């Protein structure tokens, strides 16, 4: 037995900037993505005939010429699969049956021996349409005479917290009624009312959607897909095919960026239906870059009408908001985005009187899905600008105004939930200080005007109350650990963070931990979805529980072996140690083979297998009429961004000098990863702020390619991004952690808009803040 040397103990890897465990694989190109998987000579390819019309009735279909093309193996239509599916509201078919509702809606699928032949055959399909008037504006969609997208809305199955209005285009209506807004206006010194618009944008992951589906001879389906939510996909496919979950297996290798677009079901569904007609043959469907822009998911557009009033002391007294979400043809996640927007409609402010109506509205646009922030970047675009205007009218400093009005732990928020402790004020102070708030700094040229802007934000994971996570921790002979989870590595570093947690609990180095990949619904434990910035917290809790289960088993074994009290034992540096007897046992072998009983009496222990699951039990429903309830969500992550920029008055171009990004993450399990999220969020936020929009003309996309859908490149991003980590622990987070994956892009666009306004006197109400808009608005100002 060796002496215990406590001082050489490796520090816990939790809280350390451990290197990404997938870094080498990804940097060298070795990491397999869905399109890299090999399927041998049986592989076939699928292409899809898509609706050219935003809204039309299918009168007839003639696929005979397509089917007759040499190389074509099957042609499928809406007749092949006739059940509706949807995450919260079952409003779609995989292939259209009655109507088409957006340009890109799948009508026919062709399976062939090559992509080119499949595409040629697609172009031979004849579809006769009766073109219908499209709905292209979410406000006008509610006019009494507006065309209806879903005549049978009343028949659709729907989750109990979603409230569609049959006979209209409203897929969900969420209401907040708190205090008395009507009487509050009288007490206000300043009332500001504005309308804000957010365009439809797309996620533009570097890897477009790829799905390969196969129906095997036993009647079961396997789907290999670039997926953020293998278990949710399995569920949705089961709905659409009227099968049970266990008939479907989803295997999800690494994801080349998702940002929400690879949650839910889109291209994968078409692959599965095509596979149905060619048993034994895997069928591969890849979206082209152009299809990616409007055939999978987009971020919903938004029209926000907001009114805010404050008293002379600068306290916000009332807020009234209407949100009209441009949900597109089907809703998948959209109905829940509208709900999340409603229950977060005040932003992180203390406002006693609130009225909010959030409408998720069907339009003949691409399908709105989840995108990083799940409605929050969209609503904060308006919230954080109108707060700026209120501060201006009160002649108050904008930082001071926010510090005066933001929520603190213990105060009631918009839904009546008592806020857990949050570090938002600290975020505001630190972000402002980091960019020298209040100090005028010179622009880079006589033609430029420089100024600063600030915006705060909050976001809660938006999910069903009972979204769960689970994990297993298996010990190997060499004391390494294999951890199985169902959450997905989508570039956010979750596998690394999970490995850190396991290593932290088991007292082993991080590089002893391996994550089972790919995620496979047949072997991986259940995870609701990799969305909502929930993995560090939710899957983290499950992983910690699994690791603690394994730890307990090991300690019990050693306690019996040494005949000691378990209280005195610990796991450190890959060993079980006793602080009392100073006995030490390396974990190697004992975690699989157990330990011998004294006097050759046999063995005890055995392979160590820990398991854990987590589900928040405390989320309550909200009153239908008032949106009030005890606890609407699990928690809110809050933060603040402060921007220093200049505008070239000759062109309207914005040059961002620096953005400080401060978020209260509870506990940074891996600070470098948190900072990376803040940097990525700022880049994506700035890109959507300045450039991005999917332009449509009468429902038809006009810029579905990188030629005219511009995103920020490395030379467009801020010169300096200053990440600031604030840590006010979450009571039920692992080590106090809460999520931060989506948050850093939420306040970016309004912070930039506020800075542009401060620099030029021009305020842009509809995203993006393009150079053209700024320039032309400045011209208007100049000419009076």
């Amino acid at each position: 037995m060796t002496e215990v040397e406590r001082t050489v103990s490796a520090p816990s890897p939790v809280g350390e900037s451990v290197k990404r465990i997938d870094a080498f694989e990804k940097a060298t190109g070795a990491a397999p993505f869905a399109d890299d998987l090999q399927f041998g000579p049986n592989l076939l390819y699928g292409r899809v005939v898509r609706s050219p019309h935003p809204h039309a009735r299918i009168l007839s279909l003639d696929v005979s010429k397509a089917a007759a093309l040499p190389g074509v193996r099957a042609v499928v239509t809406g007749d092949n699969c006739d059940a509706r599916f949807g995450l919260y509201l079952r409003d779609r078919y995989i292939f259209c049956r009655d109507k088409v509702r957006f340009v890109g809606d799948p009508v026919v699928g062709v399976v062939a021996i090559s992509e080119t032949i499949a595409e040629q055959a697609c172009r031979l399909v004849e579809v006769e349409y009766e073109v219908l008037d499209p709905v292209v504006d979410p406000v006008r969609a509610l006019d009494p005479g507006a065309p209806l997208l879903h005549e049978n809305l009343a028949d659709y199955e729907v989750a109990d917290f979603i409230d569609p209005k049959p006979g209209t285009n409203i897929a969900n209506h969420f209401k907040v009624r708190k205090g008395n807004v009507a009487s509050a206006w009288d007490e206000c010194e300043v009332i500001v009312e504005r309308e804000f618009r957010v365009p439809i944008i797309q996620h533009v992951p570097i890897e477009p959607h790829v799905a390969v589906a196969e129906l095997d001879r036993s009647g079961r389906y396997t789907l290999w897909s670039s997926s953020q939510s293998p278990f949710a996909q399995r569920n949705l496919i089961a709905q659409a095919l009227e099968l049970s979950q266990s008939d479907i297996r989803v295997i999800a290798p690494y994801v080349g960026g998702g940002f929400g677009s690879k949650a839910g079901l889109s291209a994968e569904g078409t692959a599965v239906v095509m596979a149905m007609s060619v048993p034994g043959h895997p069928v591969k469907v890849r979206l082209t870059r152009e299809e990616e822009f409007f055939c999978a998911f987009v971020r919903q557009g938004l029209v926000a009408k907001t009114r805010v009033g404050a008293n002379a002391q600068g306290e916000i007294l009332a807020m009234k908001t209407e949100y009209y979400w441009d949900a597109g043809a089907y809703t998948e996640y959209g109905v829940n985005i509208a709900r999340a927007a409603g229950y977060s409609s005040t932003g992180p402010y203390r406002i006693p009187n609130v009225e909010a109506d959030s409408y998720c509205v069907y339009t003949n646009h691409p399908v709105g899905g989840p995108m990083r922030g799940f409605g929050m970047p969209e609503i904060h675009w308006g919230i954080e600008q109108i707060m700026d205007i209120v501060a201006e009218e009160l002649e108050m400093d904008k930082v001071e105004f926010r510090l005066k009005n933001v929520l603190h732990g213990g105060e009631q928020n918009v839904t009546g939930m008592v806020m857990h402790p949050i570090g938002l004020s600290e975020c505001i102070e630190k972000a402002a200080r980091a960019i020298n708030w209040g100090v005028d700094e010179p622009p880079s040229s006589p033609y430029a005007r420089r100024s600063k802007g600030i915006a705060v934000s909050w976001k809660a994971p938006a999910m069903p109350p009972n979204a769960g996570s689970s994990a297993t921790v298996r010990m190997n002979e060499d004391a390494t650990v294999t951890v199985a989870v169902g959450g997905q590595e989508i570039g956010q570093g979750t596998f690394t963070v999970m490995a850190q947690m396991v290593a932290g609990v088991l007292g082993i180095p991080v590089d002893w931990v391996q994550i089972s990949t790919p995620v496979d619904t047949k072997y991986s434990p259940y995870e609701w979805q990799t969305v909502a910035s929930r993995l560090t917290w939710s899957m983290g809790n499950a992983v910690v529980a699994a690791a603690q289960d394994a730890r307990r088993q090991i300690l019990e074994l050693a306690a019996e072996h040494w005949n000691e009290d378990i209280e005195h034992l610990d796991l450190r540096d890959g060993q079980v140690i006793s602080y009392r007897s100073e006995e030490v046992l390396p974990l190697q072998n004992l975690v699989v083979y157990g330990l011998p009983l004294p006097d050759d009496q046999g063995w005890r222990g055995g392979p160590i297998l820990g398991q854990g699951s987590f589900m928040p039990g405390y989320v309550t429903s909200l009153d239908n009429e008032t949106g009030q309830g005890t606890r609407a969500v699990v928690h809110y992550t809050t933060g603040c961004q402060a921007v220093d920029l200049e505008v070239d008055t000759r062109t309207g171009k914005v040059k961002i000098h620096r953005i400080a990004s401060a978020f209260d993450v509870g506990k940074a399990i891996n600070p470098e990863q948190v900072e990376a999220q803040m940097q990525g969020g700022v880049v994506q936020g700035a890109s959507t702020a300045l450039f991005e929009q999917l332009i449509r003309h009468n429902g038809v996309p006009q810029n579905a390619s990188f030629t005219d859908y511009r995103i920020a490149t490395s030379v467009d991003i801020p010169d300096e991004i200053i990440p600031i980590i604030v840590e006010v622990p979450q009571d039920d987070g692992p080590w106090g952690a809460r999520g931060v994956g989506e948050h850093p892009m939420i306040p970016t666009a309004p912070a930039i808009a506020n800075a542009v306004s401060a620099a030029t006197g021009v305020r842009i109400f509809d995203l993006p803040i393009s150079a053209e808009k700024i320039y032309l608005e400045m011209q208007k100002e100049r000419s009076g």
Partner: protein
Amino acid sequence: MELPLPELPAFDYLHASSAQHALEQLGGSIARTRVLSGGTDLFVQMRAGSIAPTELIDLKHIPGLATIEFDENSGLTIGAAATMNAVARDPEVQANYPLLVRALETVASYQLRNRATIGGNLCNASPAADSAPSLLVLGSRLTLESVGGQRELALNDFFKGPGETALTPGEILTKISLPLAPTGWKGRYLKLGRNTSGDLAIVGVAVLGFPDPEPTSGFRFRIALASVAPTPIRVADAEELLETTTLSDESIEQAARIAQDLARPISDARASAEYRRAMVFELTAWALKDVRQMLEEEA
């Protein structure tokens, strides 16, 4: 809305070993046969289905067609198949035609410029072609060849409309010739895209100025614009104004107004006509002021 094909459609590929070889194969049908340089326009258009040639004749490997030659007496000759990066990193081009180097550096990305050629940029005849304004103000001439022989043409007479040039069926561009640049010249190419890198021009403005005792102002100027008319254009009236009046902020702004009035921009996904027109004014004035400053610093 027709989407681009998932893959490039099939075509026959011909590796031309000489200009003569290429010309013989080319025949007269550009619907069926196209010449291929970098392919950075051609392949995009083939995938989009806007053209559907079944045969491509690759000019890249023709000996001599990618050479870049500088002669102290006659100027620069660029082979039509020289890539933009090859031109931009040529020491003689850098020393004598930095304006062209700057203009090429605004095209797409470094990776793309490893393939894209100036020849392709001109023959594709996009109104937004970034090499065109600089080549116009530098007084470039083109050599066109067909089975019947060779002819020369000023670049100014080459563009006929969007995608249309003076090339006749069966003819190819072999050389771009730039005369010696005027002594003491300074130039500026300003390109405005939506984002900083990789975008097509909303407006491109090239200005070249040089001292000349003869005109009133003591300088001569040449101004050319991209992306604001059916073809890249010169702005002769503005050039003249700047020569016949004393150079001042007012005369520069007047010249920029002339450019703005001459522009006939369209509205598209990239920008509105209104913004483009305004940008012609702003960028022309900006480029002229920069060039004036450089000229004054030199004097």
